[in-house]
């Protein structure tokens, strides 16, 4: 079994890739993808901790990952709907130009 620290390093690398993308990219869809990558890194941590028995007895880590996947799906649906609404309103997805709440 691969030791726990390898998984933790992998998930932190995945997290910072998502973070760097969410900070630097200007397209709203790519920013949303970066946030998804960060959520997935957290999921990997949950499951790695669960598998290596750090959380004690029970399957709390597994359940947390499962609920996190479900909530991330809802988040993506709402986020992409918002992105489509913004595009319909402003004809652009460049976050540097979408900078006011008043349409």
């Amino acid at each position, binding site marked *: 079994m691969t030791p726990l*620290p390898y998984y933790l390093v992998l998930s932190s690398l995945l997290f*910072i890739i998502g973070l760097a993308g969410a900070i630097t990219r200007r397209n709203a869809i790519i920013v949303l993808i970066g946030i*998804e990558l960060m959520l997935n890194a957290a999921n990997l941590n949950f499951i790695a901790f669960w598998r*290596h028995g750090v959380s004690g007895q029970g399957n709390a880590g597994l359940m947390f990952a499962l609920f996190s996947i479900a909530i991330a*799906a809802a988040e993506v649906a709402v986020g992409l709907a918002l992105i*489509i*609404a913004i595009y319909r309103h402003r004809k652009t997805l460049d976050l540097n130009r979408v900078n006011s709440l008043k349409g």
Partner: protein
Amino acid sequence: MTISFIILAILVLAGAALAMSLRNLVHCALCLVLSFTGLAGLFLQLQAQFVGFAQILVYGGAVSILVVFAILLTRSGDTQESAEINRDWVIGCWIAAIVFSTLAMALLSSAFFKEPQAVPGQADARAMGHELMTRYVLPLEAVALLLTAALIGAALIAMPELRKPQGHAPDKEVA
């Protein structure tokens, strides 16, 4: 560290890095599928079968299809971002490096490196289903409610704006 872990880790990291750096958004979405599928492989390697297959279904299937739909509906695939490395990139990479060094420091100073834990977790789909129906039944219902509300809300937001009924804005005429 096994060979399969190395292969899956390279798959996940390369997919994520390409998804964050490519210019064509459709290519980004395809690399994203690669990364999510590699993560599902990692989950399977960690003996979390149900979550692994749920990852393939939800992320590899539904989320990527949604992302592709959004890219095509907003015609982001046609327009390319400018390719030059500007100040934003430098700042973003600095922030990422600082966050990573913080995480690595916390990791190195933790106890996980020194003593391996004894009891590995084990759960098949049957045990998980049983637990979802007994101990976690309230969170399950809450997530069901949340998903329903979120999907209805998403459909409402993405719908074209309805026309306002005629004769409903008398304020302008008065003014």
